C-alpha cells in the first residue's frame, strides 16, 4: 500500500520545526510502523536526503525507547501497543499519517522525533526505589506477600517508561508514570518504610521537572501501551494523604 506521511522535522532543540510531507510506497501490511519508517529513511539516504531521526531499541515493545504520536495518538491507533509493535495492517492504502514527537516541556526535542526523557529518570532518582544495599538481604521467602498484592505491584511495575502518558495528557503530566512506581513499591511490604517519603519526593520532582498536574482526564490510561491503570493515580493520592496525616 501507499501512504502519505506528514512527519515532524526539527534540526535540533533550538529549531522551530515543521511537518514535512513524504510518500511511503509499497508498504507491506506485515511491516511494523518503524520498519515502514526505516524504508522511508533508506530511500531518503539514497536520494541524498537526511533520514528521519527516531528512537527505538528492542522493537518488541518492552524497552520503552520508541514512541511517536501517530495521528494524534501516542504510539498510534492500536491499543496496548507500542509504536514498534504497531503493524501497517492497522492502516489502509492511501491513508494520511501525521507523525509527531511526544510533546512536553519536560521532553525537549533533540531532533525530529527524538526527545530527551531524562526527566523521567530524575523522577525515579527522587525516590522510585527501595533503599537496600547489595548483600545482606533476608531470604526471599522471609517476607510473605499476598498473591493479590504481588499481582497489583506487578500490574504497576509493568511500566516501560516510554512517556506516552505524558504525551497524551492534556496537561503534560507524568502522574501515571509516577503513580505506577509509587503503587508498585507501596503494595509491597519491603516498600512500606519509605512509602510516605517516596510519594512526596517523587511528586515534587515531577513538578520541578516541568510536568503539569493531573486533572483526571485519563488520557494517560488510554494511551499506555502496557495498560497501566489510572486507579494507580488514586493509589498515589491515597499514599500522599496518608503521608501528610501520619
Amino acid at each position, binding site marked *: 500500500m501507499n501512504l502519505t506521511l*506528514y512527519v*515532524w522535522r526539527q534540526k535540533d532543540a533550538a529549531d522551530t*520545526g515543521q*511537518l514535512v510531507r513524504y510518500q511511503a510506497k509499497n508498504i507491506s501490511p506485515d511491516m511494523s510502523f518503524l520498519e515502514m519508517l526505516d524504508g522511508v529513511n533508506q530511500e531518503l539516504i539514497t536520494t541524498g536526503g537526511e533520514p528521519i531521526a527516531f528512537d527505538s531499541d528492542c522493537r518488541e515493545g518492552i524497552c520503552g525507547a520508541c514512541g511517536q*504520536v501517530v*495521528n*494524534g*495518538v501516542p504510539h498510534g491507533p492500536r491499543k496496548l501497543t507500542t509504536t514498534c509493535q504497531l503493524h501497517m495492517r492497522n492502516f489502509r492504502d492511501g491513508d494520511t499519517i*501525521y507523525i*509527531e514527537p511526544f*510533546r*512536553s*516541556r*519536560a521532553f525537549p*526535542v533533540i531532533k525530529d522525533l527524538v526527545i530527551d526523557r531524562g526527566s523521567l529518570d530524575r523522577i525515579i532518582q527522587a525516590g522510585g526505589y527501595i533503599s537496600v544495599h547489595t548483600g545482606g538481604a533476608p531470604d526471599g521467602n522471609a517476607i510473605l506477600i499476598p498473591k493479590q498484592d504481588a499481582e497489583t505491584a506487578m500490574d504497576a511495575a509493568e511500566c516501560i517508561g516510554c512517556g506516552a502518558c505524558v504525551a*497524551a495528557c*492534556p*496537561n*503534560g*503530566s507524568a502522574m501515571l508514570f509516577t503513580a505506577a512506581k509509587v503503587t508498585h513499591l507501596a503494595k509491597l511490604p519491603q516498600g512500606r518504610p519509605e512509602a510516605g517519603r517516596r*510519594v*512526596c519526593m517523587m*511528586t*515534587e520532582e*515531577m*513538578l520541578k521537572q*516541568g*510536568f*503539569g*498536574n*493531573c*486533572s*483526571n*482526564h*485519563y*488520557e494517560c*490510561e*488510554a*494511551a499506555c501501551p502496557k495498560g497501566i*491503570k*489510572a*486507579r494507580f*493515580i*488514586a*493509589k*498515589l*493520592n*491515597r*499514599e*500522599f*494523604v496518608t503521608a*501528610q496525616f501520619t
Partner: protein
Amino acid sequence: MFLPASSVGRKLVMAATGQLMTVFIILHVAGNSTIFFGNLNAYAAGLHSLWVLLWAVRIVMLPAVILHIIYALQLTVENGKARPVDYMKKENRTSTFAGRNMIWTGAVIGTFLVYHLLQYTFQVTNPALSAYRNLDEAGRPDVFLMVARTLQQPLIAAVYLLGVTALLLHLSHGIQSSFQTWGLNGERSFPFIRKGGSAAATILWLAYAAIPVTIFTGLLLR
C-alpha cells in the same frame, strides 16, 4: 511538606473545596425546590431565622470558593506551560470537553455567582423587586415575587440557564475527579463513580434549570 506547595496537595484542596461546594449546591437546590410547592417564602424566612447556621455556611464557603479559584488559576497556568509546543494533530480518547474546559466553565460559574449574589442576596440588580421591599400576605419578604419577576425576563432566564449549564459541565468532570484525587475509589467503584458523577451533575442541572424554565414558560403558576 506544606501541603499546598505540592502538586497533589493543591489538587486535594481543589477537590475538597469542590466537594464542599457540591454539597452546598445540593442543599441549595433542595431548598430552592420549595418554589414548586408554593412555600419558597416560608423556606427563605425560616432560613433567615437560623442566622447562625446561615453565617456559618457563608464563612466556610467564602474561603473555599477563594481557594478553589486561586488553585484553579495556578494549576491551569502550570498545566498550560507544560506543553509549550502543541500538537498539530491530537485525538482525545477519554478526556471530555467539560474536563478540558474546567477553567472556562469555572469562570462562567464564578461570574454567574457574582451576578446571582448581587441579584438575590444583595438584591441590587433589580431594586424594585427586592424581597425586602415587598412583603407577602404573611408579612415575609416576597422572595417568590423577586425570583418569578426576574426570571420572566428572557435575558435573565438565559443567564441562569447558561450558569447552570456551566455548572453541569463543571460538575460532570469535577465530581468524579474529586473522588479520584482523594483516592476515594477502588477498582470496582471507579467506573461507577465516573458515571455517577456525570449522572449527579445531570440531575442537579435538571433541578436547577427547572426553575428558570418553568417560570419563563409560565408553567410555574402561583
